[in-house]
């Protein structure tokens, strides 16, 4: 039966390819839209809540929070490192982690911080960089893979994309993070003094004022009310340092993330509505295609009936054929959606989320099973109707 079904499909190649393409496009788009929106939300949520507040230069709250937690966009500017010490001296504060973003390594961001910044992350190989030594780095797993780096290698960062802007001093890779499928996979982490040293040209001239400055400070407090107090104290505060005035801002990251996610939720809702529309169109298109297919097969079916093939066997034959088409379509749709995830990876990573190709959400399985059923059910109905209207049955 299966052999004959395959042969019968072989004589309708063009028709079947068109059916498969139509199902693959609509199912693939549905699955991809769901997966990307879910992974982006999950990626943002996974990093939220680590810190009580973030202190940085005045400007966009979202830019400060997203840059400090997801390494997106550019830093708002710099503030004196002395604020870190001020915060650490405050008995309401449990930790104050300096954060500076400068330079890149083959396009990957280089972050200057302390080892506390990575305390939630596991080291896959090697060790954490030392807080006492400079020019040591822990790199994300994607960077290691893409550049063929291993522990013990030396990397040369650059101030811009230009090869000429490479720093002469190298940074020793002492550890590689375990794969996290987050933006951490694509970042180089080093002690903050490494960045200061890279930008101190030894001629007493500081490069872009990097020396003893940070882009932001990630703060944890003993309790949430202290976070609120400190936010009020630091937000809008102006401090003098080296005869320069710095206006600070303080944000509670969860609040910012909540705002971002509420916008993402609206986007997700739109995606779901689009998915639902696509699925409804799927049902209509696939049903019409199946009906036309069965209509075109009427001659073939009457031929088989005349030579004595029972309606039961004919029904089974068409159900097998359409099940194969449905199965191929859903599998191809799934593979196409994964391929699109890879292709979209670079774009989405610029938003701070690394798409995981192997991440499958349960609703995606439901969508694919639904698509499979949609491609088979019209055939079952058609064959049932045909059996009822069998010209030979009286």
């Amino acid at each position, binding site marked *: *039966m299966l052999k*004959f079904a395959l*042969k*019968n499909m072989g*004589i309708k190649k063009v028709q079947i390819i068109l059916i498969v393409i139509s199902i693959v496009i609509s199912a693939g788009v549905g699955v991809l839209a769901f997966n990307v929106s879910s992974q982006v939300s999950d990626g943002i949520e996974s990093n939220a809540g680590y810190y009580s507040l973030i202190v940085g230069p005045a400007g966009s709250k979202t830019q400060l929070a997203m840059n400090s937690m997801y390494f997106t966009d550019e830093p708002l500017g710099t503030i004196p490192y002395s604020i870190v010490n001020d915060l650490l001296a405050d008995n309401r504060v449990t930790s104050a982690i300096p954060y500076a973003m400068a330079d890149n390594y083959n396009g990957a961001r280089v972050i200057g911080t302390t080892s506390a910044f990575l305390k939630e992350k596991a080291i896959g190989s090697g060790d954490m960089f030392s807080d006492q030594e400079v020019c040591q780095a822990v790199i994300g797993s994607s960077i290691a893979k893409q550049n063929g780096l291993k522990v013990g290698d030396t990397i040369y960062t650059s101030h811009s994309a230009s090869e000429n802007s490479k720093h002469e001093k190298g940074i020793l890779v002492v550890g590689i993070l375990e794969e996290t499928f987050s933006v951490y996979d694509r970042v180089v982490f080093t002690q903050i003094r490494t960045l200061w040293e890279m930008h101190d040209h030894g001629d007493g001239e500081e490069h872009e004022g990097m020396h003893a400055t940070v882009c932001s400070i990630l703060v944890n407090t003993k309790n949430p009310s202290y976070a609120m107090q400190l936010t009020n104290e630091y937000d809008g505060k102006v401090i003098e340092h080296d005869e320069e005035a710095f206006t600070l801002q303080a944000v509670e990251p969860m609040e910012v993330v909540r705002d971002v996610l509420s916008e993402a939720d609206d986007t997700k809702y739109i995606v779901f509505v689009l998915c639902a529309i696509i699925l409804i169109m799927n049902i209509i298109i696939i049903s019409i295609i199946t009906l036309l297919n069965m209509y075109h097969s009427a001659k*073939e079916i009457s*031929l*088989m*009936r*005349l*030579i*004595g*093939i*029972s309606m039961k*066997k004919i029904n089974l*034959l068409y159900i097998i054929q359409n099940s194969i088409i449905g199965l191929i379509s859903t599998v191809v749709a799934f593979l196409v959606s994964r391929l699109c995830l890879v292709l979209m990876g670079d774009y989405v990573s610029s938003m701070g989320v690394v798409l995981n190709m192997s991440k499958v959400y349960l609703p995606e399985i439901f969508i694919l099973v639904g698509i499979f059923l949609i491609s088979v059910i019209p055939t079952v109905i058609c064959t049932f109707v045909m059996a009822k209207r*069998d010209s*030979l*049955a*009286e």
Partner: protein
Amino acid sequence: MIEVKGISKKFKNETAIDYKDMTFEDGKSYILLGASGCGKSTLLNMIAGILSPEKGEIIIDNVDITKISQKEKDLLRIKSIGYIFQDFKLITEMTVIDNINILRLEGVDTSRADEVLKSLDILDKKNKKVKNLSGGERQRVAIARAIVKSPDIILADEPTGNLNFAIGEAVIKQLTEIAKGKTLIAVTHDDRLCKYFDYVIDMNEMTGGKYDA
């Protein structure tokens, strides 16, 4: 043995054909002659269980097929009857062998296919698509499909209708040779083919002669 007793078939245009009683003995060949519309093909379709008469009995090996279900008729047609249709009823996009193997859907043994195709001189066409065959070759494929299962009864509706006389005569010669020992009932309006059959039945006479064209 096939016995046709007092059957009548009514058509959509309300005209009815009343058939005289007929008996077809096992192992004999019959040719049904008659003008178009006299009910020759209708009789074959009723014997094959494709059509049902309004009244009367068609008894095949002591079973009245007018009383059995469509499922049983299908089973009879697939197992015991080889039907050669006037327009061949072949899937033209498929190969010769696939058109024969289609019977496997109902569990029919088609292992004799090569032997049958050889006896009909078309073994070399086995893997050719039917659409690329000539009319005579297509007719032979239709015959091969009908006889591959070694049916007790072979029904042939105008087996030479689409062929010129020379090719048609060759096909009939082969068909009667292969059908030796089986009950063969062929419908034609070409009386030049009568010599190849044991019996000739004038269907104009069997249906009262009132349907002469």
